[in-house]
């Protein structure tokens, strides 16, 4: 590798600040660079060309492109938890202390064991792995695949949690302009002139696109000068938002787009300060203008992947932007005029250069200027071979041969010494975003590429993105489209239209397509014409895929993986189509093109998650008593988004012990439960009762005012979805309780039926769950606690019987008290406005002290109700269980002609008598607790499969009964009362007897006590 200085004199490199040196390291080697450098330019300025190794053959690779289209120079940047793999060196902005490493090589970049694959490459044609690695069978997972996995995969993941933050922002605008080149700036100016709100974004740090490396003037000044003035003006405008370092990653339906802003990657100081690293912009635009420019095409010639072979535009940019010479003597290989600007720039920099042009006649202005400048032009020729130093690390020369379109092999050739090649096969409009939601495209003969055609959304393309490469045309187009977009957004705007500036630029001669450059010898024997550089897909691979019948371009793509690398085919797709067209004698449109998928360039998962990580990942709902629970070291369990206290272990108390303690307290004295999460819905109107009769399986129109009734809810399939106690507050006024999880669902459901089915019903439904804190005071001493709380509150059985409700005050606290019980004990549920909840809670605890009041959690609650044989929606039911299945036939009205789910109960399968029915279970060994979900079998066999006849739905050790109890859904269970069932578990069989599911206080004496 040559060691001569690659950094040119002051007159080159307008983007770098030579007064600000920065030091960075590449593969552990300390290197100097300048502020304004990219990692690519800085490394090249240090005389290093090889940046990485290719995916499959591990061939050494250098920089080919200029920005996000780069497919070779992928590096890992940053260390430890801040490491980021697979970054394009051409996009990494240099900063002091930047640490970069090359990828996919071992042990080192210049010597890579993996490159053995290259030597053996002929054994690895496209799709080879489908044809082998099948024998012996077990070797696939044990030998072959592990090897493949280790070999693949480019860079390494960071280790540890990401220390940086990310955020989202929503933005609406009248016009979004994607791309800040000359055309984009022009369109933005025109749109903004109407007063429209305009957002313009560009993925690079600076605006201007190719302005600084393109010839021609605008209103008499250089393109770049014009661009800088424009962006300055736009950045000051009130109605414009200018976003640099921001990539539009995709276009979604109805003109919603995602922009990916790299806020702080370029400056560690910002990150250290806590600036969000990336910001995801969710933009809704009335009009979208794509000024995304075009991407230069490489040329498929033998060994076109050697380090030192780059795109002509890129070579030019490294020269003028960063003052970096791609080499000391070069060759420009082109099929168009544009590349001649590179030749001229190189010449101007004192670098020796020749032009090889596949076109037989080149006499337009740029070539003529080049000739005048003394540049040798070899027209009608093409590169037939590339010579390189050992290991292919460097270009040493080429063989040039006369070019005849379609000719297979090369006869005569001339050798030319050179250490770099700048190639240009033409330009492809960047269509990606246009196509994301299905915009139509058409093939353009002059471009030999696809360009935008029609689109169903309000979106337009201008300039190179639209195939309009010439400066004058691009400006006219951009101003016209920009103005139209502004008008469409603000039809009334009277603003004056900006005048279209005057463009002066050399007229270019048409390009001639060059999809394949014949090589020395038979092209696919030995030397490789790379189409997809990163994935090592050659012209021969594509042609082979065709021959093997993978004819659809999608098949070819998937079989050879061309276009599937991290550049998503930006530089390879069209070249591939060209090769396929020539191989099959079809036209490119006949071959078709693969679908463009978001994102335009890869963007971080962190930015997609934004701030929704850690404690903001998903909301946690807290009851008014949450802090108290925490102060008591409660164990919590999530119920939907709620956090409910599961149990309250005392210091050094086992979970099971604390649960038992809580249960016995309720049975023997009194317990207190935070039931605030219970759903509460106020329902009022002349048809309120009728609505309840429709949504509950049992009757509610007969409920007396002030009384409560337990109700069952089915869906239309006849399956249980919710239950709860509903209270009649007035003739036309009810308060419905739902399960904690069901609150939102049920109230929305009631609204749905009222608005879409029973639209003649006059009923208002208002969910009030969170208005109330609600506590259950349960146990023989419950009444005493309430009396202590407020002696005047009438609590006698006569005045306040089971299943009734009273509204009033407990002390100063306004309350609703319901005498309902889910524990089977005498129990009152007290509802109080949420902000007074904690106050009353404390009062109850004080009042209960003498009675040994014990706070109990959800697990104790579940055991208590199981002892009573009460069902829990979600435990005894799983979405396939009917009220009849759980033995609540009594709550399925025979009188009502219609209620939700009624008809489905008549479907044959739901009427079967051998359905699984809810029963109680008592294990033969009372200390044996059946596991939840254990299955009973018809007959125990020594090994599976065994016929299953039902499963345990709830199973606990009952501290009250000092034995295990369980409920289960068993096929025709009720007919099997007294039968003993077998539950084969791991290594043992548990036997249990079918019994009635009410284990405790069958006659309900406690409850009515």
């Amino acid at each position: 590798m040559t060691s001569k200085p690659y950094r040119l004199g002051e007159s080159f490199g307008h983007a770098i600040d030579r007064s600000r040196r920065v030091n960075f390291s590449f593969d552990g080697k300390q290197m100097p660079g300048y502020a304004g450098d990219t990692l690519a330019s800085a490394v090249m300025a240090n005389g290093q060309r090889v940046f990485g190794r290719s995916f499959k053959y591990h061939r050494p690779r250098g920089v080919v492109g200029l920005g996000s289209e780069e497919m070779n120079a992928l590096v890992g940047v940053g260390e430890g938890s801040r490491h980021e793999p697979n970054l394009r060196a051409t996009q990494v902005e240099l900063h002091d202390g930047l640490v970069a490493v090359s990828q996919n090589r071992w042990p080192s970049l210049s010597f890579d064991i993996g490159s053995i694959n290259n030597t053996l490459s002929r054994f690895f044609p496209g799709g080879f792995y489908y044809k082998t690695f099948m024998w012996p069978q077990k070797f696939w997972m044990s030998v072959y695949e592990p090897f493949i996995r280790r070999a693949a995969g480019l860079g390494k993941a960071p280790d540890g949690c990401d220390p940086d933050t990310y955020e989202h922002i929503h933005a609406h605008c009248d016009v979004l302009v994607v791309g800040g080149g000359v055309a984009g700036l022009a369109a933005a100016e025109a749109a903004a002139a109407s007063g429209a709100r305009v957002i313009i974004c560009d993925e690079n740090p600076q605006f201007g696109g190719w302005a600084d490396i393109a010839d021609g003037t605008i209103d008499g000044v250089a393109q770049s000068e014009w661009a800088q003035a424009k962006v300055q003006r736009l950045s000051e405008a009130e109605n414009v938002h200018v976003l640099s370092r921001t990539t539009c990653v995709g276009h979604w339906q109805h003109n919603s787009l995602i922009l990916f802003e790299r806020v702080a990657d370029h400056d560690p100081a910002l990150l250290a300060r806590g600036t969000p690293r990336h910001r995801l912009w969710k933009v809704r635009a009335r009009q979208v203008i794509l000024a995304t420019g075009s991407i230069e095409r490489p040329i498929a010639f033998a060994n076109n992947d050697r380090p030192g072979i780059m795109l002509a535009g890129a070579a030019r940019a490294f020269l003028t932007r960063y003052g970096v010479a791609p080499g000391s003597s070069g060759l420009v290989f082109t099929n168009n005029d544009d590349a001649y600007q590179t030749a001229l720039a190189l010449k101007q920099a004192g670098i020796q250069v020749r032009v090889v042009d596949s076109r037989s006649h080149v006499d337009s202005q740029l070539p003529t200027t080049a000739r005048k400048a003394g540049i040798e032009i070899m027209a009608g020729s093409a590169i037939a071979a590339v010579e390189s130093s050992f290991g292919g690390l460097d270009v040493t020369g080429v063989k040039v041969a006369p070019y005849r379109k379609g000719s297979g092999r090369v006869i005569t050739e001339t050798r030319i010494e050179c250490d770099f090649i700048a190639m240009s096969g033409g330009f492809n409009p960047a269509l990606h975003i246009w196509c994301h939601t299905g915009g139509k495209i058409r093939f353009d003969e002059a471009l030999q590429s696809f360009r935008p055609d029609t689109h169903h959304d309000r979106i337009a393309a201008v300039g190179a993105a639209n195939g309009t490469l010439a400066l004058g045309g691009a400006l006219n187009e951009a101003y016209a489209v920009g103005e139209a977009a502004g008008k469409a957004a603000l039809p009334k705007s009277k603003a004056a239209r900006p005048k279209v500036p005057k463009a002066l630029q050399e007229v270019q001669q048409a390009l001639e397509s060059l999809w394949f450059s014949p090589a020395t010898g038979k092209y696919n024997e030995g030397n490789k014409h790379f189409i997809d550089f990163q994935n090592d897909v050659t012209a021969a691979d594509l042609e082979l895929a065709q021959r093997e019948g993978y004819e659809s371009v999608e098949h070819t793509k998937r079989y050879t993986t061309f276009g599937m690398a991290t550049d998503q085919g930006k530089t390879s797709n069209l070249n591939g189509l060209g090769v396929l067209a020539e191989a099959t004698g079809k036209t490119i449109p006949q071959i078709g093109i693969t679908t463009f998928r978001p994102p335009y360039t890869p963007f971080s998962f962190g930015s997609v998650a934004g701030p929704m990580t850690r404690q903001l990942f998903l909301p946690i709902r807290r009851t008014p008593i949450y802090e108290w629970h925490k102060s008591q070291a409660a164990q919590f369990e999530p119920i939907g988004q709620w956090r409910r206290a599961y149990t309250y272990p005392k210091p050094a108390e086992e979970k099971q012990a604390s649960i038992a303690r809580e249960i016995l307290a309720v049975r023997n004295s009194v317990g207190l439960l935070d039931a605030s999460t219970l759903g509460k819905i106020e329902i009022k109107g002349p048809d309120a009762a009728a609505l309840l009769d429709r949504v509950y399986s049992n009757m509610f129109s007969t409920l007396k005012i002030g009384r409560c009734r337990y109700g069952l809810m089915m869906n239309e399939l006849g399956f249980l979805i919710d239950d709860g106690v509903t209270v009649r507050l007035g003739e036309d006024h009810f308060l419905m309780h739902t399960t904690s999880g069901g609150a939102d669902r049920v109230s929305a459901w009631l609204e749905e039926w009222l608005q879409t089915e029973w639209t003649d019903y006059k009923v208002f439904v208002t969910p009030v769950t969170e208005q109330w804190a609600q506590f259950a005071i349960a146990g023989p001493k419950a009444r005493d606690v309430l009396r202590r709380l407020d002696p005047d509150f009438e609590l006698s059985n006569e005045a306040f019987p089971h299943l009734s409700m009273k509204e009033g005050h407990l002390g100063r606290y306004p309350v609703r008290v319901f005498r309902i019980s889910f524990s089977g004990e005498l129990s009152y549920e007290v509802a109080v406005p949420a902000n007074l909840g904690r106050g009353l809670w404390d009062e109850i605890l004080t009042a209960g002290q003498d009675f040994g009041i014990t706070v109990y959690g959800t697990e104790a609650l579940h055991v208590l109700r199981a002892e009573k044989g009460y069902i829990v929606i979600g435990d005894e039911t799983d979405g396939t269980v009917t009220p009849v299945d759980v033995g609540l036939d009594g709550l399925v009205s025979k009188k009502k002609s219609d209620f939700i789910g009624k008809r489905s109960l008549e479907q044959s399968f739901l009427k079967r008598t051998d359905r699984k029915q809810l029963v109680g279970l008592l294990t033969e060994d009372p200390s044996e607790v059946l596991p939840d979900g254990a299955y009973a079998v018809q007959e125990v066999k020594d090994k599976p499969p065994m016929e299953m006849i039902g499963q345990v739905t709830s199973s606990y050790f009952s501290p009250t009964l000092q034995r295990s109890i369980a409920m289960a859904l068993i096929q025709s269970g009720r007919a099997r009362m007294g039968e003993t069932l077998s539950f084969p578990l791991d290594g043992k069989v548990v036997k249990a007897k079918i019994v009635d599911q009410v284990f405790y206080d069958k006659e309900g004496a406690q409850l009515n006590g």
Partner: protein
Amino acid sequence: MLIVHCPVCGAEGDETDFHAAGEAHIRRPATLDPEHISDEQQRDYLFMRRNPKGLHFERWRCDRGCGKWFHAARDTATMEFKAFYLATELPPRELMEQATGEWVTFFKDKLKAAKTK
């Protein structure tokens, strides 16, 4: 990302501000005649869907707005909304005429009825 418009309150917003609830204009047999519903009618009501590629009619709720249910006509291939109308209404006449597949049979008598009016 769909941008949805509520015909009740005029709110416009992301699909996430609304609730999509599947096919519209499905009649619940039990509301009309609870006593005479065949298993097949019940099946059709609960499961059978027109599911066209192209113009479709569906139910939405203005979840983060007025909370009202409404109908939308949308092309399931291009995702373009063609109309938004009330939950108690039929689609605009021209859309009923453009409807394809299973929808044609459904709208036939509706269009006839509209004519005779």
